[in-house]
């Protein structure tokens, strides 16, 4: 057993850290205020190969592992939660399903543009009436004359306005037991009848592009079906398992950012003639933060390692996501507490982190759903 990162993993982390601190962090505050998507940053990330980290070179990727990818997400998240969310969504939700389930032709056509940074990617699962219960998907795709005709509505799809294609889940039929068959389809965003808007005013991750999708008789060729038509559901469960590790990594990044700010502030701020870091009450908060961040990171690295080594990681990714996201909310909340009234002011940047962190408990499966996954994994269903 070896807890040390490899040379490459360290280099990726350091390189992304440098980039994120110099190019992303200085913009975070303004992006949050204006809810502006940092397209320029993503161009640079594409040039550096960040959007293709965990994919092989032959698909335009860097051929690095998932551990390196998680370290990269963490570093971007430490600088800006919203930029981090769009980054994680592009790789884990936009590119991954095509890499894992696409045909060679689909990878060539749809994966390479994402890994090379030419476009982002998006995955539209959630609907106004189907959130945690993805089985309740209402969007329908009917196969007619070699084309799927899609009708329905999706909500909160990350990155859709900056993607050339979106992966859309839809009901394509019923199985022998009468249950809906849900499949995934690659839909070009410029298809006729496809409307994409971003009408949401979000609490946090405001730099991230969050979209509403309306599909009215959108026609895509049958070959745009992604993976096995019958196991669309299984496919997106696997996709979400992977995505969860990245959301956990993002949560850790945000928490690290808040912890570092709080630590610095505690060393500067004086009350009762002392630096507040000398008060044990403040020290204990910082001790808890440091410990929880490290524990969460260990879980993320383990889950990513399992994925890299092609071992089951469903339970571990749920552990990582659940613990890291709740930890991030706690940490950011305490970081504000350490800042006192200043922490409540936008200028100090920690209140933004709390708003950003909260999404981590909701996106890609709420904390409740993570507990359901874990309970199932530890065999509660069969007790």
């Amino acid at each position, binding site marked *: 057993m070896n807890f040390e990162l490899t040379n490459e993993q360290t280099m990726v982390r350091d390189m992304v850290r440098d980039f994120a601190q110099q190019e992303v962090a200085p913009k975070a505050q303004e992006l949050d205020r204006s809810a502006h998507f940092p397209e320029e940053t993503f161009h640079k990330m594409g040039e550096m190969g960040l959007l293709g980290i965990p994919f092989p070179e032959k698909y335009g990727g860097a*051929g690095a592992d998932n551990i390196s990818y998680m370290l990269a997400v963490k570093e971007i998240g430490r600088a800006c939660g919203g930029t981090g969310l769009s980054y994680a969504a592009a790789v884990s939700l936009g590119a991954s399903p095509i890499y894992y389930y696409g045909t060679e032709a689909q990878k060539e056509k749809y994966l390479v543009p994402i890994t090379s940074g030419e476009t982002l990617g998006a995955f539209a699962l959630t609907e106004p009436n189907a959130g945690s219960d993805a089985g309740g998907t209402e969007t329908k795709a009917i196969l007619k004359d070699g084309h799927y005709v899609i009708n329905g509505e999706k909500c909160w799809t990350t990155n859709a306005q900056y993607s050339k294609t979106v992966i859309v889940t839809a009901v394509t039929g019923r199985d022998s037991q009468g249950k809906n068959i849900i499949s995934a389809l690659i839909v070009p965003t410029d298809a006729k009848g496809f409307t994409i808007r971003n009408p949401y005013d979000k609490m946090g991750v405001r730099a991230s592009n969050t979209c509403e999708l309306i599909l009215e008789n959108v026609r895509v060729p049958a070959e745009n079906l992604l993976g096995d038509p019958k196991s669309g559901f299984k496919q997106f469960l696997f996709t979400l398992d992977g995505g969860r590790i990245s959301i956990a990594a993002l949560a850790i990044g945000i928490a690290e950012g808040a912890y570092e700010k709080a630590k610095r502030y505690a060393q500067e701020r004086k009350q009762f003639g002392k630096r507040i870091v000398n008060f044990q009450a403040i020290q204990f908060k910082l001790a808890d933060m440091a410990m929880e961040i490290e524990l969460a990171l260990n879980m993320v690295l383990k889950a990513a390692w399992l994925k890299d080594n092609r071992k089951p990681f469903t339970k571990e990714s749920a552990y990582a996501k659940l613990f890291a996201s709740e930890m991030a909310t706690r940490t950011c909340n305490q970081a504000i507490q350490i800042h006192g009234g200043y922490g409540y002011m936008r200028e100090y940047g920690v209140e933004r982190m709390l708003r950003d962190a909260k999404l981590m408990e909701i996106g890609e499966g709420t904390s409740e759903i993570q507990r359901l996954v874990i309970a199932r994994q530890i065999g509660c269903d069969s007790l």
Partner: protein
Amino acid sequence: MNIYVLMKRTFDTEEKIIIRDGEVDKEGAEFIINPYDEYAIEEAIVLREAHGGEVTVITVGDEDAQKELRTALAMGADKAVLINLEELEGPDHFTISEAISSWLADKDVDIILGGNVAVDDGAGQVASRVAEKLGINQVTTITELTIEDETVKIERDVEGDIEKIETTLPLLVTCQQGLNEPRYPSLPGIMKAKKKPLANVGVNELEMNEKELTAKTKTIDRFLPPPKAKGKILEGDIDQQVNELVHLLKNEAKVI
């Protein structure tokens, strides 16, 4: 074009530095490529992109310096050489430059690029000594470099003014801020770096005699500057303040 870069691994002077028994505590320090050497690496890659050839990055250090060499390879250098002088007692700028020169002695050198100074000791000696030893032209603190055939046009920074120089290859230059914007290593670059050659060279593989191996200087001690004392605000009317100031400068600071 045969391009060589002299690179040093240094501790990050922007991070906290702890000194124990006259040595910088390696556990606590962050290590980086000397920032001026990053300009040298970048310029070397730009030269290769324009003129073809190969970039070899050389460092003198211990095993840990492999990390910085790999970073240089990830930025785009082709080869790396680690000269390990651990066997020697306290190598100084002289011994280090002798070691680099003897490794370079049988190489066909067109240009060598180094940093202006290293941010840790600020000596700025090694590169210039190498040029002297190899008997090639050298220009320090350059901010612009153009090579056409054998002719080299250079702008160098002289205390804020610019000096324009023309010289010829083979040549050694040291790089100053303003020369370029060093690139980030790309992800594919990082992955490719591990497959690029990194040679380890020990003292016995260099043809160095006793005199060249013996340091000319010895570091007696290292210490941090004393923490800045609290400032003093003088009180009273102007005359009183002036008198107090003169008194303090005479008797406390003892500068007049």
